[in-house]
């Protein structure tokens, strides 16, 4: 009978053991660091603690990144980041302390409306930067907010603050985790759990490059482009259409994607500053060449303390500029002539241009547009590392095999409107080997567009009546 109590106890211990091994789940998602970051010297990644007065502690790349962008539970905002965080930006015009109540009077820019019932106020410049305080009373007429508690430091008139700041970004994050993260990854690295099974792979935002844009070849993607992809999907891939999301939801997701992309690009550029001399490999070879590791670390410390902060600021400004400009009309591709009407003559002209030596579309897209040009079976070098890729064919900037489109299917990933095709030809497809043909006269581009749109309906391939030049070798058909 004495076995009874221990038998029962056994089952409890068993249960506990299960929980201990697996742990109660941690609710927090997290951003990952890119491979290039994690291949830096550990000191470059994690920073170097302070040792003496002339050897101050310095932050590493990871810390810099976390400071600027935070983690998914706690996203960070900086003023210059061209992302709509949500909420209303205001400046402090007056501070009143009476009867133990801390009140601030706020002013907004012209055209901006004061919110009806803000819940929190966050200081984004000045002494109190980063402090978020609940709003216990609010007068929408005068713009006077009663803060639930006094800030720890003293704010001044002219300080900028945000009412309910971050709302858009937070809701963007929630929506992103629900709809997007399992493919695109919680950090936008294109490496969510589902990603490895998809062909083509989901976009890794961290290069700051997006393929299907309406902006010219030097510009970044615009908000409209991202919204367009979300709304209509990318046919022929696993990026579905999210047409039924509301405009607010779309906006929030677009902003969050921009946030992730900016974070990724910022990380990339920061690491670029360090990778040459301070990657783990570089450090190793420097030590092998006879340098002292401690000296390298000291050099790194100086760099991180003195040079990097300024560089980081410059990088941030540069990025902000690029991303903001992309949304302006200046960045848009606008043909100088309206589309040439579709006609057999135009298509024939288009085919001539397609097969011409100057444009050489057939080299990649094949003589009949089947995506089987000679480039698809040639070996190419990675332009950054200068190493040959293992498999033949063309690759994109994400190092994925990315063969030229089979134009016979009638599936147009970037959209099937004439302007979309015009944009593909004029600006190329960023990140892929489709180059920009911006120097080609617009009228000629329209002829090519007309030809390309007619390819799926040709009674037989190449039936547009212009024969391929005999010298162009015909490659074996390759699946799209």
């Amino acid at each position, binding site marked *: 009978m004495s*076995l009874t109590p221990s038998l029962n106890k056994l089952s409890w211990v068993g249960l506990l053991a299960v929980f201990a091994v697996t*742990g109660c789940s*941690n609710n927090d*998602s*997290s951003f*990952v660091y890119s491979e290039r970051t994690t291949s830096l010297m550990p000191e470059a990644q994690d920073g170097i603690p302070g040792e003496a007065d002339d050897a101050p502690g310095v932050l590493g790349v990871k810390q810099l990144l976390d400071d600027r962008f935070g983690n998914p539970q706690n996203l960070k905002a900086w003023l210059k980041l061209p992302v709509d965080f949500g909420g209303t930006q205001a400046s402090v015009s007056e501070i009143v302390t009476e009867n133990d109540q801390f009140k601030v009077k706020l002013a907004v820019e012209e055209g901006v409306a004061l919110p009806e019932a803000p819940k929190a106020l966050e200081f984004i410049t000045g002494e109190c930067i980063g402090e978020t305080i609940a709003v216990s009373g609010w007068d929408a007429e005068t713009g006077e907010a009663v803060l639930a508690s006094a800030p720890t430091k003293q704010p001044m008139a002219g300080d900028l603050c945000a009412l309910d700041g971050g709302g858009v970004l937070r809701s963007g994050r929630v929506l992103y985790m629900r709809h997007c993260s399992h493919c695109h990854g919680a950090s936008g690295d294109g490496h969510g*759990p*589902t990603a490895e099974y998809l*062909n*083509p792979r989901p976009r890794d935002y961290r290069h700051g490059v997006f393929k299907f844009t309406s902006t010219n070849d030097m510009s970044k993607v615009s908000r409209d482009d991202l919204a367009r992809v979300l709304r209509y999907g990318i046919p022929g891939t696993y990026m579905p259409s999210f047409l039924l999301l509301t405009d607010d939801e779309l906006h929030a997701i677009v902003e969050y994607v921009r946030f992730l992309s900016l974070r990724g690009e910022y990380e990339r550029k920061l690491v670029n500053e360090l990778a040459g001399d301070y990657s783990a490999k570089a450090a190793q070879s420097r030590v092998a060449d006879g340098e002292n590791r401690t000296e390298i670390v000291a050099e790194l410390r100086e760099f991180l303390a003195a040079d990097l902060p300024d560089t980081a600021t410059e990088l941030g400004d540069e990025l902000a500029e690029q991303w903001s400009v992309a949304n302006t009309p200046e960045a848009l591709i606008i043909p100088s002539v309206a589309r040439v009407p579709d006609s057999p003559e135009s298509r024939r002209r288009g085919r001539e241009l397609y097969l011409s030596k100057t444009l050489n579309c057939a080299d990649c897209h094949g003589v009949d547009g089947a995506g089987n040009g000679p480039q698809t079976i040639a070996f190419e070098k990675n332009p950054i590392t200068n190493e040959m890729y293992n498999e033949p064919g063309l690759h994109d900037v994400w190092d994925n095999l990315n063969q030229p489109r089979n134009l016979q299917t009638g599936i147009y990933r970037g959209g099937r409107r004439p302007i979309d095709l015009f944009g593909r030809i004029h600006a190329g497809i960023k990140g892929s080997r489709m180059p920009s043909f911006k120097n080609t006269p617009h009228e000629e581009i329209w002829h090519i567009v007309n030809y390309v749109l007619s390819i799926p309906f040709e009674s037989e391939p190449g039936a547009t009546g212009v024969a391929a030049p005999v010298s162009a070798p015909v490659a074996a058909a390759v699946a799209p």
Partner: protein
Amino acid sequence: MATVSPAIGTHGHADDHSHGHHEQSFLSKYVFSTDHKVIGIQFLVTTMLMLMVGGALALAVRWQLAFPWGSMPIVGSLFGLFQNEGGQISPEFYTMLFTMHASVMIFLVIIPILAGAFGNFLIPLQIGADDMAFPILNMLSYWFMWPAMFCFAFSFVAGGATAGPGNGWTSYPLLSDLAQASPSSGNAQTWWLFGLTLVGVSSMMGSVNYMTTIINMRAPGMTLFRMPLTIWSMFITAILQSFALPVLTAAGFMLVFDRLSSLLPTDIHSVFFIPAGIVVNNAAPTVGGGQPLLWQHLFWFYSHPAVYIMLLPAMGMVSDMLACMCRKPVFGYKPMVYSMAAIAGLGFIVWGHHMFTSGMNPALGMTFMTSTMMIALPSAIKVFNWIGTIWDGNIKFNAVFLNCAAFVSLFVVGGLSGIFMAAVPVDIYFHDTYFIVAHFHYVLFGATLFGVFAAIQFWYPKMFGREMNDGVQKLHFALTFIGMNGTFFPMHLLGIAGMPRRYADPYLHGYLEHLLPMNQFMTISAIIMGFAQFLLLGNFAYSFFFGKKVGRNPWGANGLEWSAPSPPGHGNFDEPPVCYRGPYEYSSPEAEAMGQDFILQTSPPPAGFKKSSGHVH
């Protein structure tokens, strides 16, 4: 301590056993035993453990539906699978959860527990045989379960950490056919198919054994219409299994051959189910010529009889148990037999009711609808007969009876909801919604599983010589009943509301958003129900060591098994039994003449007793 030790000296027969009385090794006595009782218990313990595995998968499904994209307990942090996402599972992981929940429950729990555990244990005992016709085949049928379980287990990780089999237990092509069609369609699907084939082999071995044993090895006097309904049900089930299963096995092979290029380094493969020109995941277009619908016909040709395989044995056992607990004969024994036969027979011609929206010829819709409606009839007859059995009985309200009463009561719900789905126009709305899920859980859980709970307790004394604690079983019953209804009854309403099955996030759709609180209620009920099963397991394990020892016939039942020792020794009976009457002569005048309300089938008629004529059968 209860064992199945050979009761030396109580052997009634010594000549037809080649191994005689030599001491068997532990391995051949308890592990690779050919004794049907040991095999039955092996099946029982294995399937009860698999029940918990299947249940855990179901709880994960329910968690996702209650807290969509929340951090999933245990799974979310297991092996760092979803670390970056904070424990949020991926959509393909969800498809794995419901696929493996169904696969485990159907192939590794319900079918083996009914046929493998109870069929094995009871058939020789109830017909008065000393063992099955093919003891070695019987042993193999158990041991084939292990490679099958290994294949299913391996399939969880074969295709990638989060890409277990996820194409539904129905595994429709082209999703399951083309490796590129989903993360689960690669190696995971292949291993799943191997597991399926192996359980099929196991089942087939069993059914051949059962049919032969029942036909050939009945005790003298045990005519067909003196067999307990348990045996009838096992017999009919074995026939169903042997005729239907080969079709599934063939279909499984066809699917494996379609998928050959993902299994072997070859481009050659069949295209039974693959039409031409399909491009999935930007792979090369298919070269096909096949028909996806063919799989559905072949699959459901087996799987519809399969659902009766998963029901009939429980029906038979419940009849036995109800008669015993109500101390009266089964009402309408022959109609009960004929109904089971009708269910089985009709069961072969209704498979198309799973395919009403599939795009098959509408004329088939009409024929299948008619036959499906008709199959409700024998089921209804059985329900009425069970109620008739209970009527005016001297009822023992123990947990065995409660579980059997629940069987009847809940089977009514499952059967009636089937009528909606038999009607094609109505099924057009309900197909692939939660209404279907409600229906089959009521028949599989509400009916079969409660029947199994009753059977475990009822035959436990015979298996182990001890009884289970009735109080704990009653508590288990109450919690399970309440939890089960709390979980599955609202599913009827969810189906009417148009909530589709197999959705990881139904609340994405505006018209379903308001159903979240109900789903949370269902999840809580499911958790209660899930944890209540530990009561059963605990009671089972505890009683094995510390349960009150009982004699041969603690329930005062009539079957041949209750004349054997508890547990029966090698050879089962003290001497070869002779059967003198039917199995349900409770409270008969003959029994009264012996001063009891039961009379064993093996008891010779009391002296001087003359049987009255003209009983209604």
